[in-house]
């Protein structure tokens, strides 16, 4: 564990983050000067595909492919400088102090290990636990993600679980080392609306009760604004606008407004959907 944070310092600080992907035809700038800070709060990062929102999350975890070039004035988690951290330090962060929940539990869980074994493994990677203790701790974690029958789920393989249940197991696994920050990258896009609401409510409760910070990455603006304190809207690798989630309907940026207006509505009939007019000025580097 590194030195304690000074009071008043945010848990995560990102200033002027750039991520480039060199390719045969030139350099693709996926993230172009993103800055934000996360304290003990829930930050939503919203954007369309290709806006650089996932790349930002992965840069924070040091999970980008080797070809990526990352630059930043500040990229800090706690007191760890992520840009200059050793692979060993990063391993301590990933799955230790930072938990990552991905879109589809079908792909992020190991298909040949039972749910319980995977949670126990996550536990034992960071703490010294006996077999029996690990099992008890895994069951307790499964209970904490509101699984009604933890014993059955503990011994089940991922393919025997529904999507929502799989995502709960994933969350339990991420909670095992007691992380300070949870990064959820489209955690509910593969789930039905009813399950989606349950899972997000669960994440919200856990984050609140454990005093964790949450970074929720999603394409779904209404969803994010409902579950987060603040929302950063990304477009073409830059943050267009950052605002308190409650003030979303008062968003000023044309892009944010456009995203909200092009949604079909259940309650109001619209003959034609408004389409988003992309202003080339949005692409200009922002300071």
């Amino acid at each position, binding site marked *: 564990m590194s030195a304690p944070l000074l009071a008043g310092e945010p848990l995560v600080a990102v200033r002027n983050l750039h991520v480039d992907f060199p390719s045969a035809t030139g350099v693709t700038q996926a993230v172009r000067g993103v800055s934000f800070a996360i304290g003990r709060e829930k930050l939503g990062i919203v954007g369309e595909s290709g806006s650089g929102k996932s790349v930002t999350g992965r840069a924070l975890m040091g999970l980008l492919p080797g070809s990526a070039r990352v630059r930043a004035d500040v990229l800090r988690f706690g007191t760890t400088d992520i840009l200059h951290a050793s692979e060993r330090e990063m391993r301590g962060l990933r799955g230790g102090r930072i938990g990552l929940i991905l879109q589809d539990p079908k792909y992020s869980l190991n298909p040949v290990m039972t749910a319980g074994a995977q949670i126990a493994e996550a536990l034992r990677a960071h703490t010294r636990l006996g077999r029996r203790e690990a099992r008890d701790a895994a069951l307790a974690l499964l209970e904490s993600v509101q699984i009604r029958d933890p014993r059955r789920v503990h011994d089940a393989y991922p393919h025997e679980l529904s999507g929502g249940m799989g995502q709960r197991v994933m969350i339990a696994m991420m909670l095992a080392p007691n992380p300070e920050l949870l990064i959820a990258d489209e955690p509910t896009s593969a789930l039905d609306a009813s399950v989606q609401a349950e899972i997000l409510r669960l994440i919200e409760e856990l984050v609140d009760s454990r005093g964790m910070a949450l970074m929720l990455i999603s394409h779904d603006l209404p969803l994010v604004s409902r579950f987060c304190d603040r929302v950063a809207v990304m477009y073409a690798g830059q943050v267009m606008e950052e605002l308190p989630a409650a003030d979303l309907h008062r968003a000023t940026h044309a892009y944010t407004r456009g995203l909200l207006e*092009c949604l079909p509505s259940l309650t109001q*009939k619209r003959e034609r959907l408004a389409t988003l007019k992309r202003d080339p000025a949005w692409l200009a580097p922002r300071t």
Partner: protein
Amino acid sequence: MIDIGNLDVRFGANHVLRGVSFRVAPGETFGLVGESGSGKSTVLRAVAGLVTEWTGRIAVDGKPLGQKRDRAFYRLVQMVFQDPYGSLHPRQTVDRILSEPLAVHGFTDADARIPRALEEVALPRAARFRYPHQLSGGQRQRVAIARALIADPRVLLLDEPTSALDVSVQAEVLNLLADLRAARGLTCILVSHNLAVVAHLCGRLAVMQGGRIVEELDEASLRAGRAAHPHTRDLIRLSRDLEEA
């Protein structure tokens, strides 16, 4: 135009559809709503002839259909798939993808039809010789729509056509579908989990759960929330919840 009666589908021991019946009038757009596993996509695939393990009655344009479909059927009925990344052959150019149905149905005016089809879905001519991986998701879905319409079908089956797209692109594709439907007088079945999308395009819809249609209602009652079945009410409540947030 489409008449489905008592449709049953079993995959082995798995009873996927249990006695599904509905009718779609010519020029109408009918919505099928439900959560994953409710069987809504299977209905569409059975109509399209992609699922053959069905019993019951499927009739299109007054003609009852068997398990095997002939070429004439595919002149009449076409489908747009959910995932524009998966529904276009990764090693074929847009040109090749669009000329395939023309070759099968013996059209000889491919060189005139392909540019016209691209124009109809608002794709630039430059897209004609690109590979799918050189296009964005929205552009791919436009290619898929162009492919479905290039042989002038009268029935279009839409399987979650916008759920893999960004919301801004979804709006464009939904507008495009509405325009094409009006211009060509298409009869459509739209499968979606998104009530707002279904309400936007469909005059009537059916809510499915566990392989059954639990309720059929029209757009006005859906928007007003006048639903009888608890599952429908649940879906409406969830959808409104997010909208009002």
